[in-house]
């Protein structure tokens, strides 16, 4: 998850945030890390660029991008899927 945190920081230009500042279960949006709707789109781009994962159903977004842990779980599950 440390790598994912670094990727999030780089993708979203969070220059005043360090990986250790982001809790594994901390909400990424609203009162958590305070990300906005454009950041949500950038997280979709991150999945595509770094993990070749295309988000098939945008309705899943709030669930997948709730925290670093939920993102990591989703990435791991996608990578385990055959072909």
């Amino acid at each position, binding site marked *: 998850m440390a790598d994912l945190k670094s990727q999030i920081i780089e993708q*979203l*230009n*969070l*220059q*005043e*945030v360090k990986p250790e500042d982001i809790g594994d279960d901390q909400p990424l949006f609203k009162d958590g890390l305070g990300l906005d709707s*454009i*950041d949500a*789109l*950038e997280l979709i*781009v991150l999945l*595509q*660029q770094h993990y070749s994962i295309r988000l098939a159903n945008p309705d899943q977004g709030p669930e997948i991008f709730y925290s670093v842990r939920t993102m990591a779980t989703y990435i791991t599950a996608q990578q385990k899927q055959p072909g």
Partner: protein
Amino acid sequence: MSKQTAYITGSCVVRKHQVYRNGALLWQEAPSLELQEFLRKAYDRFSGQYPKFHKMDPLSKLGWLAAEVLLREAPIEDHLPEQVAIVLSNRSASLDTDLRYYNTVKDIPSPALFVYTLPNIVIGEICIRHGFKGEHAFFTMDSFDAEQVVSYAQLLLDSGVATACLCGWVEVMDQQYEVALFLAERQQREGAVAFTAAEVKKLYAQQSGS
């Protein structure tokens, strides 16, 4: 022609990695610095505590920083948010960011860059920071045209639409940039000069070192 008087109650000019407020050099950095490095240092020097700054494009960063420097010393809270107008202009519109965005289109288009592919976004960033809700306009012109900017700002002040107007020039293309912001108010304050194209030109030229 305006029938009423307004005053220039503050100015901020940023060029050649030098920051001037009201004609006085406040801070400077080595001319060899890349623009983004200069902007980051200027942010650390004059602001901080506004993480959204790092997501802005260079045009918005420049306008936002100049507004930050200028308004720090200006009694802008005397005005209703709905009566603070912004009238800006430049030469390259948002081309600097448009080209950067175009380069991402070949791969995966960047949403974060796309939102800055309009020149008036810099006005939005200043408004968000200071809570302004007044009229605004952004003009594209070959070079800073004080007559046009002053005449439009004066119209807003004369018509009562605004009691204060932040106006001027915010240009960037690659490493070349220049910002000149002026605060015009109805109310005269100490050290203020008449809000005329001639006075604006004088301030703009003085701080260019020419």
